[in-house]
């Protein structure tokens, strides 16, 4: 308890906690879970966007999409590295992902069904992710905070790219405009749900707030996101698929219609449309790659042995 108080004092003083510092087991566990989940989301997130690399309708778009998906892999890499500082290996985390024990962001269990989805994901999904992640740049755990600074910088670049794709479509042929609207229709609610349940129904929040792992509540972040996004949609001439959405002068923000929480929980619990396909794809990549990883280890061992023999 003395230690806990001292630890909380460091947190309150906005000191960064570093891997070798003593920390409460719950703090460590929460971070391992959260950073792992975040890393997995980056990795699984490569799949829905990767689905359009081979069909991207211009070479320029193909290149930027490839670069984007690569960046996501890179984010996964720093995040796994940040989690590893807390004593879990990337291999362990991967096994947890593949066995279904570890979660990842539910949004990636929706399918990408048109080129417009590549734009919309950048605009809405990366937009929502940034809202969630900017406060994490000031997270009390140093390695996570530092990883997030880098991640956020790249994500906001992706968000602008996504918005620009949607803008090109919204100003394009009638078919392209319809494609953009259809995509917004499908992604709006899942994006809104990315902020999690209403504050009243959120489990881990209070302790995470105290530990400064989290700095805003789900509803606060959701509100910020909606307020930022509605004018962007208006600028594009697209309609947000929420008939109840309207400006609330009093609170200085938008009110939105009711969220379908049964859909939310269904997807969170692993029954989203693409959930099985995602894990299957990752498992296949992992299993098919086993011989490569083994060969790399075997070769490194051989090299080491030869070097020692030569010395």
């Amino acid at each position: 308890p003395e230690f806990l108080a001292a630890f909380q004092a460091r947190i309150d003083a906005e000191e960064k906690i570093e891997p070798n510092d003593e920390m409460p087991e719950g703090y460590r566990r929460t971070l391992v879970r959260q950073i792992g989940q975040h890393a997995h989301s980056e990795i699984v997130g490569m799949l829905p966007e990767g689905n359009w690399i081979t069909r991207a309708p211009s070479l320029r778009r193909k290149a930027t999409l490839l670069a984007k998906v690569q960046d996501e892999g890179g984010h996964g890499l720093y995040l796994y590295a940040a989690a590893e500082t807390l004593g879990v290996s990337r291999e362990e985390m991967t096994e947890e992902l593949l066995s279904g024990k570890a979660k990842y962001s539910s949004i990636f269990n929706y399918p990408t069904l048109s080129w417009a989805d590549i734009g919309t994901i950048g605009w809405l999904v990366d937009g929502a992710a940034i809202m969630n992640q900017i406060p994490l740049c000031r997270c009390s755990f140093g390695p996570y905070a530092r990883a997030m600074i880098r991640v956020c910088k790249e994500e906001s670049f992706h968000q602008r790219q996504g918005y620009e794709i949607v803008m090109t479509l919204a100003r394009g042929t009638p078919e392209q405009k319809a494609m953009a609207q259809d995509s917004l229709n499908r992604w709006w609610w899942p994006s809104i749900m990315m902020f999690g349940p209403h504050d009243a129904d959120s489990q881990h929040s209070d302790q995470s707030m105290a530990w400064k792992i989290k700095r805003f509540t789900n509803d606060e972040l959701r509100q910020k996101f909606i307020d930022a996004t509605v004018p962007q949609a208006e600028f594009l001439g697209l309609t947000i698929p929420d008939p109840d959405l309207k400006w609330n002068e009093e609170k200085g923000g938008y009110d939105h219609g009711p969220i379908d929480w049964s859909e939310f929980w269904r997807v969170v619990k692993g029954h989203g449309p693409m959930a099985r396909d995602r894990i299957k794809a990752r498992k296949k990549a992992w299993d098919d790659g086993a011989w490569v990883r083994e060969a790399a280890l075997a070769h490194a061992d051989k090299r080491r042995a030869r070097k020692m023999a030569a010395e």
Partner: protein
Amino acid sequence: MALFEALLELADDHLVLGHRLSEWCGHAPMLEEDLAMPNMALDLIGTARNLYAYAGEVEGKGQSEDDLAYLRDERAYRNLLLVERPNEDFAHTMLRQLYFAAFMHPYWQAALSSSDETVRGIAGKAVKEMAYHIRHAGEWVVRLGDGTEESARRMKDAVFALSIYVDELFEEGAGDDALPSRAAIRPVFDKTIARIFDEAGLESLEVPFPQSGGRDGRHGEGLGHMLAEMQSVYRAHPGASW
């Protein structure tokens, strides 16, 4: 039009190989390769774009890079058979990459002294990229060739499968004075491969019957499926901007 044709051949090589590499995206054997393969794909697609753009300029009929990439069918594509071969497994993919880069690196090096300024510019960027591709793919060929029994077997299978497509690299194709001779590259290529194969414990194969035909659009049956997918959105919306 020899320059136009020759640029198109080169551009097609880069695009098709870049596309094949990009098919790995999200499915690589390890996260590091989920970064490295798109990286190489980006290099290749970047070079393809420069080459298509310049080809369109040389042709002078107003064809954009996308017109050239998205509106030609498999008989019109001029790429080498090597680059269109399916990914199969990581051993095949890395060997294919090594063969291509071991050729293109000295090719671009020679192109640095081209009489054509644009070619020199493209070569200047590409030559560094190809050095990295040789290093990256070459290291994997060594690791896999000298790794486990399984990896060595797969590496040998890859050599068997791909070596019949190597000779085509040195055929002159459309040719143009602004571009290097392909045949002249052979000794440097052979040296690079011999060095890496030696370290990997691999043997080069005699190829009494090499395959070719890519430069005349006589491809394998895989390319058409690749292009059908690649061009699907572009062709479904004629005239749209993206």
